[in-house]
């Protein structure tokens, strides 16, 4: 095996991590969708490299599935959605991006510490990226809880799914195909439901700002 191959996988993982940070601090909805598309592409790249090295044919299929779903179909749906909702040029006010970045770095350190003892036991070529995958899960989670608007929250949710996919390829060469198809179907149906929801939320609240959704609070 070429010594450069693991490096290439790590490079893709690093790109995914940087994109996760970029999404965390990105205020424009349109740019968020672009970043999400690039992240999907990086996941496809890393999966293809792993598939090539290990000669696991089912990984080619899942790379193709990811390409179709996360690089083409879902970004296309998101673009359509923001056009129809007329939020294409929306800018979200995010308070204190530097603090957010520092919290993000802390999460990455935490994730690496959790993943280190586990990834030692993995014999896969990409086992080093498990920590990065967990870090991306946590960063997407952080993005979801810091966003007040509906579309960025959903993009955070999708980025989390990307990170989980990366975790599956790096730890175990991917889940069985049936399970992967099931997960893809769930994500697709989920995003369709969210899309419908956003129209209803806007109809009811005249805004896509989730911070308006605060009627149901504990007294």
């Amino acid at each position, binding site marked *: 095996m070429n010594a450069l191959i693991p490096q290439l996988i790590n490079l893709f993982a690093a790109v995914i991590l940087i994109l996760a940070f970029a999404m965390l601090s990105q205020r424009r909805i349109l740019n968020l969708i672009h970043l999400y598309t690039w992240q999907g592409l990086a996941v496809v790249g890393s999966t293809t490299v792993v598939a090539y090295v290990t000669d696991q044919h089912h990984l080619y299929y899942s790379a193709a599935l990811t390409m179709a779903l996360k690089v083409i179909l879902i970004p296309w749906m998101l673009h359509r959605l923001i056009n129809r909702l007329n939020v294409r040029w929306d800018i979200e006010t995010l308070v204190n991006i530097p603090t957010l970045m520092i919290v993000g770095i802390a999460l990455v350190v935490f994730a690496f510490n959790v993943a280190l003892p*586990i990834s030692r*036991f*993995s014999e896969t070529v990409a086992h080093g990226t498990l920590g990065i995958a967990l870090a991306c899960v946590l960063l997407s*989670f952080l993005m979801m809880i810091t966003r007040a608007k509906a579309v960025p*929250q959903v993009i955070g*949710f999708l980025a989390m799914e990307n990170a989980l996919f990366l975790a599956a390829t790096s730890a175990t060469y991917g889940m069985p195909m049936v399970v992967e198809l099931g997960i893809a179907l769930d994500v697709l149906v989920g995003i369709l439901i969210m899309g419908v*929801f956003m129209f209803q*939320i806007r109809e009811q609240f005249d805004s896509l700002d989730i911070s308006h*959704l605060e*009627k149901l609070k504990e007294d």
Partner: protein
Amino acid sequence: MNALYFVFGIPLLGGLVLALVGHRSYARDLNVAFSTGSFIAACFLSVQVIDHGPMFAMDKQFLIDPLNVFLVSLTAFVGMTTAIFSRPYMRVEEDHGKMTPSRMRLYHSMYQFFAVTMLVALTTNNLGTLWVTMEAATLTTVLLVSVYRTPASLEAAWKYFILCGVGLAQALFGTILLYMAADRVIPEGVDALLWSNLNVVKGQLNPTIMSVAFVFLLLGYGTKVGLVPVHNWLPDAHAEGPTPISAVLSGLLLNVALYAVLRFKVLTDGALQSNFAGNLLIGFGLLSVVAAAFFLSRQKDVKRMFAYSSIEHMGLMTFAFGLGGPVANFAGLLHMTLHSLIKSAIFFSVGHATQKAGSQIMDDIRGLMKVSPTVGWGLMLGTLAILGMPPFGVFASEFLILTTAMRDLPWATPFLLLALGVAFASIFSRVQPMVFGDTVLKPLEHPPALLPVFVHLALGLMLGLYIPPYLNAWYLQAALLIGGQ
């Protein structure tokens, strides 16, 4: 032909048929018919298991053993009775203009698909499929919770989707780690995600990976169980959705999620040979019981109050399974069954009561006994049953859990007693004026379906006095199974 395929095949067909005709007036009856068909199939399945013992189906993709067979029957049964309750209930909602024909179609179709996801989640042997169906259950119920399209229901559904989506993402990460641990010990060509295969080699699974995986799995599926502190979606989803959905969420979905946690606990215990998983369950369970008891004392909305009561009871079961040992596991399984039956019965009565009063605020609901004594009695008896009054079965299961806690974990007992006491005082003092007291309310235009309420309560009473021998045998075997034997 295996009865198992009919158990979820019938509601699957039902979901498709009702997607086409769900808005017609006979759709209500069709909904009952499909759910009844599923229940009859579940009865045949139970008979098969009684005759032949545990079995596999479809190349080991499905597994029926004592731990899930009674949950399958319970799920199909409550699914059927809820469909019967939903018939007049949703008719009134339609008359009140809260439901339109297209929403009725969505409601009926999703009701059946929701039943499918739960039944597949319970019977599948594949832990990946388990995750997929749990996520699908979230998606179907999100649509059901938001079916009224009011601002509050949209908010509840959005919160539910986001929180459970994040939770289930953690569970997926846990499943990936488990698969990774399994990959190392299970030979090539054998499906490493099948629970039965993992159960054979659980002693060889890597303990470090398994402990981290279990933390993620517990947090993930625990979100769906409604464990504190990841319970926030639960009261909103219960309060804002249609009442039949509150009944199946509380009575069934929470059980399915806890069942998933138990399957993983068996594997983790086998790998770790310590009580790590049990201790986590004890911690989360105790926290849920105590926190929920204090939360519920501050509620004004009747459905919210009983939603918190569900968190409390799920916490109690989690605590029991955390204690482990045959007695506590037995009590946990019994409590699971009783809570499903009685909590759904309470939601049925509450549903009729809120329709009568036109409000879910407890101060607006008064004097049920005068307007419709049957609804009043249903609510009163259900409340007494869920609060653990003898001779109802909850008394027996709570008694077993408490005595085991006294023996194994004495310091936890005062907390449990305090929480149960607070819950008793606050629920009883609120339900009492709702049932008795004066009122100006008028009776409903359609007669309420009270058969399900009293059938559930009668079963709850029966389980307190007498447990059928095969059910008893299943509980005992399942208790041993959870104990890792």
